[in-house]
């Protein structure tokens, strides 16, 4: 009986989960069920739920599963919540972030070299927003601080993990087309 209802039980947990739900968290709840079985049930739930639900979906994000609304309803929700669209990152910040995401761990001099611009202000903004974090110091002259992206970064950009980013070669191909 349990097997038949497990997807529903997981759905209930997903509904209340504040952070993306991970398999290991599910394992804590169902210690007698194997990880493989949990994953199968979860996959089954995700594909079934997403195929019939048009407004809400279950997504793999930040290394876990999360239930969110679909983007096409954003205006209705904003009208209901009476909120304005959140401030987006500046293009300078996005460019710095792109360099960090692809080259991490990377130092400020390396970032400035690629961007061809001197400037440190975007780094502090990104640190404040917790999109990047320090990763110790590089053992070169001046011992510059190295930076890398955080879990917040994956959440902010709707990624499950960094491997979901298109490679630089793929981006290059888009450019040449």
């Amino acid at each position, binding site marked *: 009986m349990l097997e038949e209802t497990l997807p529903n039980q997981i759905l209930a947990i997903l509904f209340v989960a*504040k*952070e993306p739900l991970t398999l290991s968290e599910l394992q804590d709840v169902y210690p007698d069920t194997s990880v493989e079985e949990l994953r199968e049930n979860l996959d089954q739930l995700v594909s079934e739920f997403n195929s019939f639900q048009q407004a809400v979906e279950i997504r793999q994000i930040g290394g876990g599963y999360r239930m*969110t*609304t*679909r*983007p*096409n309803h*954003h205006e209705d*929700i904003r009208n209901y919540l009476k909120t304005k*669209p*959140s401030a*987006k*990152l500046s*293009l*300078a910040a*996005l*460019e710095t*972030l*792109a*360099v960090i*995401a*692809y080259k991490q761990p990377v130092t400020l001099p390396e970032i400035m070299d*690629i*961007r*061809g*611009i*001197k400037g440190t202000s975007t780094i502090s903004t990104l640190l404040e927003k*917790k999109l990047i*974090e*320090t990763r*110790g*110091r590089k053992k070169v002259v001046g011992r510059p*601080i190295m930076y890398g992206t955080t879990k*917040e970064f994956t*959440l*902010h*950009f*709707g*990624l499950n993990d960094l491997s979901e*980013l*298109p490679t*630089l070669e793929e*981006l*290059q191909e*888009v*450019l040449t087309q």
Partner: protein
Amino acid sequence: MQVQGGSQTQDYTVQLEVFEGPLDLLLHLIRQQEIDIYEIPIAQITDQYLQYLEKMKDLSITIAGDFLVMAATLIHIKSGMLLPAEPGSQLAEEVEQSRNELVERLLEHEKFRQAAQMLYERETVELSVWPPEDSEFEDEEKELISANVFDLVSAFNRMVERYKDQIVLEIQHEAVSLEEKIGEIRRLLSVQGEFLFSLFFQKKISRLHIAVTFFALLELTRLQEIRLVQKDLFEDIRILAC
């Protein structure tokens, strides 16, 4: 990537695109003419680049040093190509190398601009779904002010004052190294996530310990492994893992 910057005088208005850096400007000039990056006509692009800097000067836009460095690089390559040089000579090779380096940097820069564009699109989508990222944590953070080195020094003085009688002054053989102290703080943080500064003074400690603790906290702050925050001025300092 281009922000519209305007400059107004009494009888005319000029719109000039403002570029973030020399690579941005150069890419724009190249793309505008639909030239292959590998085949940049250096002489032509150099002239256009310099014209653009002139325009910026006319409009009293401060030209960042980076733009001038790029101008120098372009002129260097251009002049090298103008000089009659035998193929394979040192000069020819040098020019070829500078040119290749420039092309490489442009290509690299363009890829990251593309990556930034991709992130922009992803962000736009993510900002249109709910629930948004949990911001509870940040709200709690806002109530804290970050403690600086002076707060740390004064906190030390207050603690020393408060626990004066308990401080063991005679010389002991228990030496503690900075590494050990740093290790101890790291362990504490990995177990508890954060702890109060006054914790260090809850047991009898020697002057050496106080000094080493102080240095350990400074060093860990410098390495950006910990953050020191307090609820209000002169409050107990909280030590958080970064």
